[in-house]
């Protein structure tokens, strides 16, 4: 059997969102990834985020390329249209789909090989276009399906399972995104759902390209001692720049919020908060913002990340957001309605116009 459907028995008392849907309604087919794969945790966080945002499943489109990460587009939202395309080319499929129908929620799933090697060019241009898309880069530093080759995100000195160190400098999707003008840049860890879920929610609601780089250890090929993308290494070198919470435009934003994380980390002292109001009225609240960190200052964010990278620290959180982001449609100047569905009368000039035009070709 090459495809596994999940049993459709749903417990009657499962919590429902405002559409009356349970989290189960946002699930997909059974994952065929390795047990313990970071990607499955990301899928779970994604299910939580879209359920909580009450995204109507059929109004979302899941797009991916090729690789372990790209397979996950089948593992959530089975009531959404999905497109598992070709290796490294999801951004162009997304650009076309988004051009045709700007009203859907576009969720792009990619990996480090898909994004940073074969698909680097397309990723860069999707960022430049500011496609209205959340781009999840499930980053494990290796190629899994072809059995453990380094990817372009592998750190210098990180060792493969056979003990061979990587000698080439990594391409950091976060720094790359900041350089190319991305309007939303985040980094998280598949093992930190509490951090990841609000970032995903904010990224989905962001009007423009939202890069979410998620370190997602490969339990089979890159979770050993000497790897810089293992669970243990990531936990040890993890530096959260700020806790974030995301509030929809119609939500009442509390004076202070208690993130779910605080239930188990109550020892964290209450710190400063900072609200960034997005273009659509939604609010991203940053809590425990490092004193020298400004999530709306691209250059400062870049320097902060570089400074901490030099110390071996992986800075995580919602790292940069441009609240005035103008997406691709704004740049193209297209009409508000989805292009695919415009009435033919509005598209075809008709015989009279053609007859008149013919005079120009005499």
């Amino acid at each position: 059997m090459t495809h596994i459907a999940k049993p459709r028995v749903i417990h009657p008392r499962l919590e429902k969102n405002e559409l009356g849907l349970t989290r189960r309604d946002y699930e997909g087919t059974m994952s065929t990834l390795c047990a313990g794969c970071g990607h499955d945790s990301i899928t779970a966080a994604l299910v939580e985020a879209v359920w909580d945002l009450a995204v109507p499943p059929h109004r979302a489109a899941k797009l991916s390329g090729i690789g372990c990460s790209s397979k996950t587009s089948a593992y959530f939202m089975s009531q959404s249209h999905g497109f598992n395309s070709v290796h490294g080319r999801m951004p162009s499929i997304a650009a076309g789909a988004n051009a045709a129908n700007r009203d859907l929620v576009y969720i792009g799933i990619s990996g480090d090989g898909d994004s940073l090697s074969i698909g680097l060019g397309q990723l860069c241009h999707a960022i430049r276009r500011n496609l209205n898309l959340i781009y999840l880069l499930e980053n494990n530093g290796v190629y899994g399906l072809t059995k453990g080759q380094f990817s372009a995100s592998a750190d210098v000195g990180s060792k493969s399972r056979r003990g061979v160190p990587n000698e080439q400098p990594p391409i950091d999707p976060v720094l790359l995104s900041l350089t190319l003008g991305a309007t939303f840049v985040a980094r998280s860890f598949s093992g930190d759902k509490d951090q990841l879920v609000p970032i995903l929610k904010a990224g989905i609601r962001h009007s423009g390209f939202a890069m979410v780089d998620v370190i997602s250890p490969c339990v089979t090929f890159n979770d050993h001692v000497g790897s810089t993308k293992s669970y243990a290494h990531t936990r040890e070198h993890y530096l959260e720049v700020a806790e974030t919470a995301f509030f929809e435009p119609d939500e009442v934003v509390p004076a202070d919020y208690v993130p779910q994380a605080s239930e188990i980390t109550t020892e964290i002292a209450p710190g400063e908060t900072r609200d960034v109001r997005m273009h659509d009225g939604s609010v991203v609240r940053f809590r425990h913002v490092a004193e020298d960190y400004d999530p709306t200052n691209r250059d400062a964010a870049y320097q902060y990340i570089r400074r901490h990278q030099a110390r071996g620290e992986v800075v995580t959180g919602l790292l940069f957001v441009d609240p005035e982001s103008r997406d691709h449609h704004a740049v193209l100047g297209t009409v508000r309605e989805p292009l695919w569905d415009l009435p033919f009368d509005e598209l075809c000039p008709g015989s009279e116009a053609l007859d008149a035009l013919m005079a120009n070709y005499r």
Partner: protein
Amino acid sequence: MTVELDRVNDFAFKIGTVNGTGSASANGLLMQSIFRMGVPVSGKNVFPSNIQGLPTWYEIRVNRRGHVARIPRFDLIVAMNPATYKRDIEELAPGGWLLHDSSWPMADTLRRDGVTFIGVPLAEICVSEFEAARERILMKNIAYTGALAALLDIDMEVIRTLLEETFGGRKKHLLDSNFTAIKLGYDYVRTHYDCPLPIRVAPMSANDDSILIDGNTAAGLGCVFAGATVAAWYPITPSTSLVDGFTAFAKRFRVDEETGLSRVAIIQAEDELAAAGITIGAGWAGARAFTSTSGAGISLMGEFLGLAYYAEVPSVFFDIERVGPSTGMPTRTQQGDLLLCAYASHGDTKHICLYPRDPAECFEFAVTAFDLAERYQTPVFVLSDLDIGMNDWVVPKLRWDDRYRPDRGKVLDADDLEKIEKFYRYLDVDGDGIPYRTVPGESPKGAYFTRGSGHTKYGTYTEDSDEYLEVVDRLLRKINGAADAVPAPEIRSRPEARFGLVSIGGCDGAVREALDELEEEGERYDYMRVRGFPFSQDVTRFLEAHEMNFVVEQNRDAQLKSLLLLETTVGKERLASVLSYGGLPMSAHHVVSGVRERLGVGVQQEGASA
């Protein structure tokens, strides 16, 4: 009938200039003037892959009988580029005329017997008339238009009117300087030479219902009329002007008057891969989407084309062919992508292809392409070429039937979905190999997963042989089923013809002219121009009805002939090739000599077997 009379409205001339010196507008003006005089005319721009400095030529053929295929014999050459004097003079037909700029002496060694040299000091008269350096260069080229008007009897009133149309209003000063330059050339020639020459233009009324347009512009216009809303492209000669045309028409016809917003998304992609991806993504999301490229671009799009074929995504690909392989000769024409497009991408694929012969069919087939792409849920190619795409052709005025409605094919909307129990994307419900599709966002019941990996007829992933076979075998039935839906071959029959001529695309004019000439010798020929792929039964029947079919095409490897052998039941012994692939459009001369040569061979073989 005297020889002189015979040359009225039946000659060809050629203008050799330096790229980037404004000669394009001068040549366009000449061509358009002859068109306005109602005389059948064609212009072929033979230009370099260069912005400024290299030699460039423009060939104009005037033919009262309407034969306007390229003719490789020139009665008059305007030699404005000393670097090509020698070559230009050699290409003159015996008894021809050479118009050159006599501001500088021409070496005696270049003189050729039987050629009349007409010296006009174009640079000199322009230097004395105009002050700015750039203007002097540009006006020198405009001035030869005037010289030609005198020699060829082109109506100066027509020229004046055309200039007024171009430079009317705010560009009035350009009108004056251009017409002054033309008059300088005209007057000089009238004063110093006997005008007109025996080759000359006399007014006709052949063009009353015609226009002068290039194929890329016409195709771009067709895309607007077809209702395309997403275009993605990467600049590449000779296809760029298709999207340029589309963009210009979109500005005119697709901007909301109130908001100024556009009913189209035109996306310049980072490469052809992305252009294909955007087209496929948009087609998947329900839009009529297209890309325009040339052979090199199709090579890059290969992987995506297989995806669109296998995942069944409507998408339209214009391939404006140029000379390959590799970068080849980017500014020369060829029909070298016939096989590439028919079977683009790895694995078993087969694609619907349309082969327009001129700009009028570019317009028509653009619309057909979108209908077929949506009806058959697959990539559709429109194979034009540099000659059709970038040169101006005289074609009947384009017409539009307001009753036309786009054929969106089998699309289930939310209401349709309510009526069925469950939707499966790749199920052959109607037995025609064409499944039903849905547009993302319409209904939760319509959701499905699109993939280029192995899938079952229910749309789920598979690695099972039988489940895989079920889908790919249906795909073959689906595409073969399009044979009768693509434009039918155009067939011209003669009673009891033993031989058939077969051609494709822009070869049509040369073959028709060649047929006139060949039939003067007494033999009868049937003629078929294929216009679409897969081939219908009519194509097979035509080939089988002749003891020999001469397949005329513009590539080295006889790609159309190969396709006919692969896709029909005709035997190899019934097909012979007439090829021309040096980068210039097919001429009747090529066809006639090719057929004669092959017939000679054929007769010998018959004798041997008898």
